[in-house]
Structure formats: structure tokens, C-alpha cells
């Protein structure tokens, strides 16, 4: 059955959390059912106060093969990192 069902990604905001965090995925027929199952699978020990589900196919993800072009150039620009700058002595610890 599950091969005909859609895959959903589940995001949960915990009691004290400020943002929804990805917790996993599940199969369901539609978003409504996905929400029900998310409640059963991911919030059994009162992990959350709010759940989002989203069709996995609606996520556009970066590809691992694109790493070179995506992230490497940043390494050539050390000035984008705070550690690049020397603190004046007066500041001491920041």
C-alpha cells in the first residue's frame, strides 16, 4: 500500500522551541492523514505543540554534487567569517 502513498516531511515545534524542526518523514494518502499520523508517530511523549507536514516532493533540495559550486567559493572569502578580524585589545573577550 505504502508505495502508492505520498511521502511527507514532518516538522515539529517543541514546547519551548521557537521554530519548527524537521523530525522525519512518513507515508500518507493526503495532508490531513499525514498530520494524524505525525501526531501518532512523532508526538507520543508530548514532544510538540505544533506540527507541519509538507509533501516531500514540494521540497527543492541542493544536490551533494553541487557542493563545489555552491559552497566552496565561501572558503576563499575569509573576511566573511568573524574570526578573520582581530579584536582590539580593549574589547578582550567578545
Amino acid at each position, binding site marked *: 500500500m505504502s508505495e502508492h502513498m505520498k511521502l511527507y516531511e514532518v516538522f515539529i515545534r517543541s514546547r519551548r522551541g521557537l521554530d519548527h524542526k524537521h523530525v522525519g518523514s512518513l*507515508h500518507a494518502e493526503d495532508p490531513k492523514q499525514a498530520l494524524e499520523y505525525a501526531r501518532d508517530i512523532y508526538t507520543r511523549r508530548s514532544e510538540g505543540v505544533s506540527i507541519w507536514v509538507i509533501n516531500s516532493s514540494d521540497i527543492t533540495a541542493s544536490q551533494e554534487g553541487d557542493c563545489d559550486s555552491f559552497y566552496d567559493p565561501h572558503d576563499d572569502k575569509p573576511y566573511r567569517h568573524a574570526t578573520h578580524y582581530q579584536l582590539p585589545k580593549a574589547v578582550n573577550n567578545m
Partner: protein
Amino acid sequence: MSVMKYAIRLGDDAVVLGHRLSEWCSFGPFLEEDLALTNVALDFIGRARMFYSYAAELAGDGSTEDTYAYTRDNREFTNLLIHELKNGDFAFTMVRQYFVDVYTLAYMQQLQKSSDQTLAAIADKVVKESRYHLRRSYDWMLRLGDGTEESNRRMQEAVENLWGYVPEMFEMDDLERELAEAGIGVDAAALENDWYATVRATLAQANLKEPVGDWSIRGGREGTHTEALGHILSDMQFVQRAYPGLQW
């Protein structure tokens, strides 16, 4: 004494259906539903524990919740028959669940008003769970009733095979009448019209036909059961029967 018996009845309803549902564990149609169904089973077992513990407290004879679940025989169980029926296919399990959920939610909403504080408190907790159970079983009624030709056929069959177990849910004996009049128990007979109205509407919505209803069966509250209950008990009570008093 009568409140104790009443609590045992409600505990019996819950433990028997809880055990039935737990039989689906690892056999669910797919992982997500397997987990959800097992969750529901656990709710029923938890409910049984609350009713049994209260009965044990009232009995005051050293009985515990386990005494009721594990050491009573077939004829001493007083659950409504619909709870003990074999799971059948998933359609049968879900139609039974829907019938029970509609009933239980209405029943427990009345029990919340009980003058018995403990029963009312248990009902408070049960109502919350039941709302969720009903949302699930109602959803499956529509999905499978109004699904494929095969799912519709299986659901229709389940409805036909369960219909005769419904009247028993609204029949009351002396004990229940006495408790209802005293404001402790629920007047189950008064829930009948609403139950049929709700279920008829859902059947129509789910593309299912209401059965003719020319048979009905009863006896659970007096301890007269279908053969299905013995099979549950042999499974559920095996360890305590083989090793009485065993703990772990």
C-alpha cells in the same frame, strides 16, 4: 457494590477491545497505520486499568486491576459483545471501531456528569481520547466506503455483519437503570436515536447502505458471550494461568 460492578463492565469493554486492537500490532496495513492503531489499543488498555483500579478500590478485598483482567473466566466478563468480535479484515476492524467510537464518545460525555467523582474523572480523560479515535475511524469509513469497488464491498460486508450487535449497546438491565436514575451511570437507551442518526449520515456519505436489520444478538452484560471471547482470554490470561501470581 453496584458501582463496582458497573466499573467492571466498563473496564471489560475497554480491555477486550484493547486486546483485540493490539492483535493488529505488526500486522497493520502499513507502518504508519500500524503505529496509530496500536496507540488506540493502548488508550483502551489504559482505560480498562482506570475502571478496574476503581472497582478494586471499591471492592476493598485485596483485588487489583490484574485480578479482573487475568483471573476471571469467560462467564464473568460483562463486556458488550461488539468489543470481542474477531478483527476480521481491516474494513471490519474499522467499521467496528467507528460504531464503538460514536457510542463511546456519547456515552462518556454523559458519564462526565456522573455524581460519582471518580467515574466522572475517568470519563473526562476518555472523552479526549475518544474524540481522536472517532476522527480516525470516521476518516476510514469515508476513505474505504467511498474508495475502490473492493474496499466498498468489504466495508458493506462489515456493516452487515456488525449491525446486529448494535441494539445491545442501548439495552439496560436493572443495575444500569438503577445507576442511571441515581445520576451515577449513563442512560444508554437515551443515546440510541442520536447514534443511528449519526451513523446513517456517515453511511450515506461513505456510499454504504444501511442494513435491513432483521437480526440482533445480546448477552454480553450477563456473561453470555460469542466464542470469540474465550480465544481472547486464553491468549491474554495464559501467563497468569500457567504461573499464578507471577510478577515481573
